[in-house]
């Protein structure tokens, strides 16, 4: 599953509380053993290691280790805290000045300076480079070098009065001279950063190895080496965790949680993640565009039971809105009480019969429920299809690889409507509700060829509310706007909220200092972490 990582930085906030701090924190790990290798099981194969283009959470595991971030979100409060940038001043509502730590060196010996910071940001923000992370810096006008260790970030006028906050791997700083020297392609395969670990090797399909950066400026990393092993088959990863082949598994099916918890050498930390998975309707299709159909589909399934059977209340919770419970402005309760529909097969059957009689549901038509190959969504799709069949609507599940699925979802010139009625999709966002609502439901994003608003929700009032949330910094006001927007979206039944993932990892007890985070990171050594392992 492609998780879209990173915040829509323009829409983050809460910078102000931290102006007073002028130092990067240093992690303390009393009693830590220095040395040893940590092996991490990763659910997908790696694609890119260049932080400027990397946009999958799995690639971020490695990038987290090899690069330093500009700032870091505090593990508990999720507020931006110093890392490479040791402090900052808000000079105006369009300009923030950042002061960098001095003495940071890249693995090739070069110093990390404002040049590198500006180079990194400007490269991503330059549309000509076509970075997948371009939209995350869309609010930025440019990054300017003031002096060797000072950088100014300027916001575009149309995004004022917004002061940006940052975090995540996309703001990992790359060495300008080195990148220009070896070229983007080579850099992507063999990255050089300033982080606590040096890149050693990438065996495609097998492992990526990094080893301790002996000269790391912040703290001495406790681990000698980290090995990242891609194991796409979850059942196999569980077997590896059990047998000790890996120390950390980045995912765990619900059915294994109780079993692993019972083992005295495995911990199962969990945290609500910033993710949202739903089955959306193709509002362009003649069948799905009828709201009676949408409501009848909602009523055909006991969604609580369905989500419970797949996640057993352990690794996923039923969603009632798009903004996850881990985030503010989520409005889950109101939506549950006022918008969600109870299972009512009798009424659903009646409505379907009515639709058939009117010809909205043509005879002989099999409703197509598309889904990516992810087992969870495929299972939920199967439940949905089964219930539809039982209520008199022939249905089938069509699991597809990402390529054909995205082709279909994004619509194309040759098929602008999309030959499907329902599709399961997922989305991860950053710590701001805008990151969910703007992409998924604003009509700006209903464009043929690249539509993140895959349902094609086009409600002018919703657009207005979402746009308005960009123009104010008042938390309460924004919350109000987001709540209103969500209510409109879901009363329209554009989508049936599915579930929010509960990040669940399996961690061998020989690992100490690992903290799970809603951002799905795999932090090893940062201002707040310095993981160590027993012998």
């Amino acid at each position: 599953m492609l998780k879209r990582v990173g915040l829509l930085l323009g829409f983050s906030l809460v910078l102000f509380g931290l102006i007073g701090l002028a130092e990067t924190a240093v992690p303390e790990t009393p009693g830590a053993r220095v040395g040893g290798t940590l092996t991490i099981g990763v659910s997908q194969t790696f694609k890119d290691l260049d932080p400027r283009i990397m946009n999958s959470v799995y690639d971020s595991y490695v990038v987290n280790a090899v690069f330093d971030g500009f700032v870091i979100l505090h593990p508990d409060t999720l507020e931006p805290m110093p890392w490479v940038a040791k402090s900052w001043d808000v000079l105006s509502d369009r300009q923030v000045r950042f002061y960098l730590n001095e003495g940071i060196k890249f693995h090739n010996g070069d110093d990390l300076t404002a040049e590198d910071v500006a180079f990194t940001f400007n490269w991503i923000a330059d549309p000509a480079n076509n970075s997948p992370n371009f939209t995350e810096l869309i609010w930025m006008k440019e990054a300017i070098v003031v002096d060797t260790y000072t950088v100014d970030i300027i916001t575009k006028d149309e995004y004022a009065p917004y002061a940006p906050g940052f975090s995540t791997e996309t703001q990992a700083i790359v060495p300008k001279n080195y990148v220009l020297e070896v070229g983007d392609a080579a850099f992507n395969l063999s990255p050089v950063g300033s982080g606590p670990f040096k890149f050693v090797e990438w065996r495609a399909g097998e492992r990526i190895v990094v080893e301790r950066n002996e000269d790391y400026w912040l703290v001495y990393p406790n681990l000698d080496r980290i090995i990242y092993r891609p194991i796409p088959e979850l059942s196999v990863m569980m077997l590896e965790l059990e047998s000790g082949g890996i120390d950390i598994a980045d995912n765990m099916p619900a059915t294994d949680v109780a079993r692993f918890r019972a083992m005295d050498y495995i911990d199962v930390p969990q945290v609500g993640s910033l993710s949202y998975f739903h089955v959306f309707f193709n509002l362009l299709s003649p069948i799905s565009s009828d709201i009676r159909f949408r409501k009848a589909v909602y009523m055909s399934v006991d969604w609580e039971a369905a989500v419970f059977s797949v996640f057993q209340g352990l690794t996923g919770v039923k969603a009632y809105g798009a903004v996850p419970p881990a985030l503010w402005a989520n409005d889950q309760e109101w939506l549950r009480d006022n918008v969600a529909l109870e299972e009512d097969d009798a009424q659903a059957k009646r409505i379907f019969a009515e639709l058939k009689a009117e010809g909205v549901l043509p005879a002989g038509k099999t409703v197509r429920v598309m889904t990516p190959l992810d087992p969870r969504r495929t299972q939920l799709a199967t439940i949905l299809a089964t219930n539809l069949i039982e209520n008199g609507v022939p249905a089938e599940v069509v699991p597809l690889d990402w390529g054909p699925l995205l082709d279909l979802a994004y619509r194309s010139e040759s098929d602008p409507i999309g030959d499907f009625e329902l599709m399961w999709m997922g989305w991860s966002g950053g710590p701001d509700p805008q990151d969910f609502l703007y992409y998924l439901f604003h009509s700006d994003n209903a464009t043929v060829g690249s539509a993140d608003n895959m349902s094609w929700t086009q409600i002018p009032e919703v657009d207005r509310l979402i746009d308005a949330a960009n123009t104010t910094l008042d938390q309460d006001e924004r919350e109000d706007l987001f709540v209103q927007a969500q209510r409109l979206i879901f009363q329209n039944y554009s989508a049936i909220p599915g579930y929010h993932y509960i990040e669940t990892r399996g961690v061998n007890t020989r690992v100490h200092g690992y903290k799970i985070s809603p951002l799905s990171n795999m932090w090893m050594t940062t201002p707040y972490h310095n993981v160590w392992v027993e012998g």
Partner: protein
Amino acid sequence: MTERTEKGRVRLQTQDWVLSLILPGLGHISRGWWGKGLLFLGPVMLLGATLGLGVSKQRFAWLAGPPKYWVSTTIMLVLLFLLWTWALYDLWRMVRAEQEEQYVRGYWQMASRRFSKDPKGIVGLVIILLVVHVALFAPFLVRNDPIKMDLRNFLGRPSPLHPLGQDNFGRDVLDRIIYGSRVALGIGAVATILNMFLGGFLGLLGGYFRGMTDAVFMRLLEVVNSIPFLVLVLLILSVWREGGILSLMVILGIFGLQPARIIRSEVLSVREQDYVLSAKSVGVSTWRIIMKYVLPNAIASLLVVTTMSIGVNIIVVAGLSFLGFGVRPPIPSWGAMLQEAQEYMRTAWWMAVYPGLCIIITVFGFNILGDSLRDVLDPRLK
């Protein structure tokens, strides 16, 4: 008793008629031919029992019910009719064989005699018939709809209510296996039959007519065979990603071209035989030559190859379903069941073990039958 005649007419007695009409096979048994008798009696009892099962569960409600019951019922009645008629015909033939002095056994009679003495073949045949029976009459044999979920009771252990346990949706594994047999046999059988016809036809043409037809055909065969079969099928299925059952059948049908090669070599060897050459010189039409001489000889190997092919195709379909290319959920299929079971292997082993065993038993049946057929139809024993 039967009148002894010199040749030609042999008539059955009233006694034979009556007994055989009550139950096929009784007539055989009354004359001491237990083997044959049981052969007829068995299937009839089985069909009767299945019918009874259906009736007992739903009275006669299913007569007015969904179409799937109609199809199965019709097939069942047709089969029963055929069994009755064949029993009578067979009885007549056996009596005739016994009485007539100059009754000459043909190749096929000899072959079926040998077959009936071979335990391997019988076992294979029985297995296959049972599986076919289950596939044909699945609606009568299941307790519940195989796609019916029981979300509150997922991953249930085997119990009296669910003899083979429940899967992760709470669906009954046994019911799904029963319906899964339809997919396995359906695709396996249809694909193989398509295969046989197409391959047989092409092989016949190429082998007999040689020249351009043969050359083109052989080149085509080479290209298709030059790449590992599974890889080619995967590529084609990816084009047709949403094809489902039909695409699987077509692909397997067209691309499992092994029979074509075998038929071709058979035909090649036959056409050089003396009797064929003499027939040609006398002016017998090509069509007749093919029908009368070439084809019957080729059929023996065709039969063996077909049987083995069905077995192979069932495994290939299971493998493709396992990789995610098979029929679409929620239709049950053995390969897909195995794929779903992978994740729950540790906690619900029944999900993986039983469908696997079904595949093994079914394929074993076909393989052992094929083996036995090959021994029995061995041309050297002609």
